[in-house]
């Protein structure tokens, strides 16, 4: 008798949305890992270009897709880099969660709301603030840490602005080409 291999496979029904999340997350993870290779001038300072994807997803497909892409990126990125469940991961997750929450609030704005630059700036600052407070609360509960805050926030603003401008340049090219 011929073994029926077809039957031993479990098939999961995937939706178009699942595929979209998977593809976009893969893109974000690639950027995340590529970025982690570069040395950082100051601990905690990273361009955070993977947020470009999060913001683009937010603009194109809405908040819930952005939540998936952002959280999956942190999870899978950390597993691939090898920082899963380390402080780095905790901080990364704290940043992602706070920026996602702030973005969620920002989408509730009436009228035309925010554009990519505004979203990106808010996300970058929320990311940094969430990360900073988590670091202060869990790892370095010393007042001296606050001396770093102005510098870190400046970097967050610079990179948030850059990411936002990248998204702004990216969106018109994506329109209509994505499913």
């Amino acid at each position, binding site marked *: 008798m011929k073994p029926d291999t077809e039957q031993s496979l479990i098939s999961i029904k995937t939706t178009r949305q699942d595929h979209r999340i998977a593809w976009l997350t893969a893109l974000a993870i690639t950027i995340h890992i590529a970025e982690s290779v570069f040395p950082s001038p100051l601990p905690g300072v990273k361009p955070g270009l993977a947020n470009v994807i999060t913001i683009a997803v937010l603009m194109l497909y809405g908040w819930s897709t952005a939540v998936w892409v952002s959280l999956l990126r942190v999870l899978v990125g950390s597993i691939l880099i090898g920082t899963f469940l380390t402080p780095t991961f905790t901080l990364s997750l704290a940043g992602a969660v706070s920026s996602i929450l702030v973005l969620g609030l920002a989408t509730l704005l009436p009228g035309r709301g925010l554009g990519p630059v505004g979203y990106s700036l808010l996300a970058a600052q929320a990311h940094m603030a969430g990360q900073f407070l988590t670091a202060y609360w869990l790892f370095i509960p010393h*007042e001296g840490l606050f001396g770093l805050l102005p510098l870190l926030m400046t970097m967050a603003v610079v990179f948030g602005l850059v990411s936002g401008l990248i998204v702004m340049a990216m969106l018109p090219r994506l329109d209509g080409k994505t499913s």
Partner: protein
Amino acid sequence: MTRADIFVIGFTLALLPFLYSTYWNREGPAETAHIMDQSGREFTVPLSTNQQLSIEGPLGVSLVEIKDGQIRFLDSPCRGKQCVHAGWLKQSGEFAACLPNRVSITVSGKDALYDSINF
């Protein structure tokens, strides 16, 4: 860019100077001096009144001068006179000591300049 974008950018640019002025400008003028003598007793002197103090140590008497919200070692019976060369202490957290004569002075204000110092 929408109006909300402009608002967010404006808010951000206003936030940064606030952060720098709050967290990078912590040392203030000194208001009181804490003098410790050979017995380890610490006594606190306000810097608002001009006066000279004599502090007894194992080598002799160290002279300390308070003037215009500042304090310094005027003289000490030690060899190196590092305490005298330390000059006026006026910023909160500054510190001078005459180790041979076992006298130390530190000044404090609202905020300290240093958290701690090790030698």
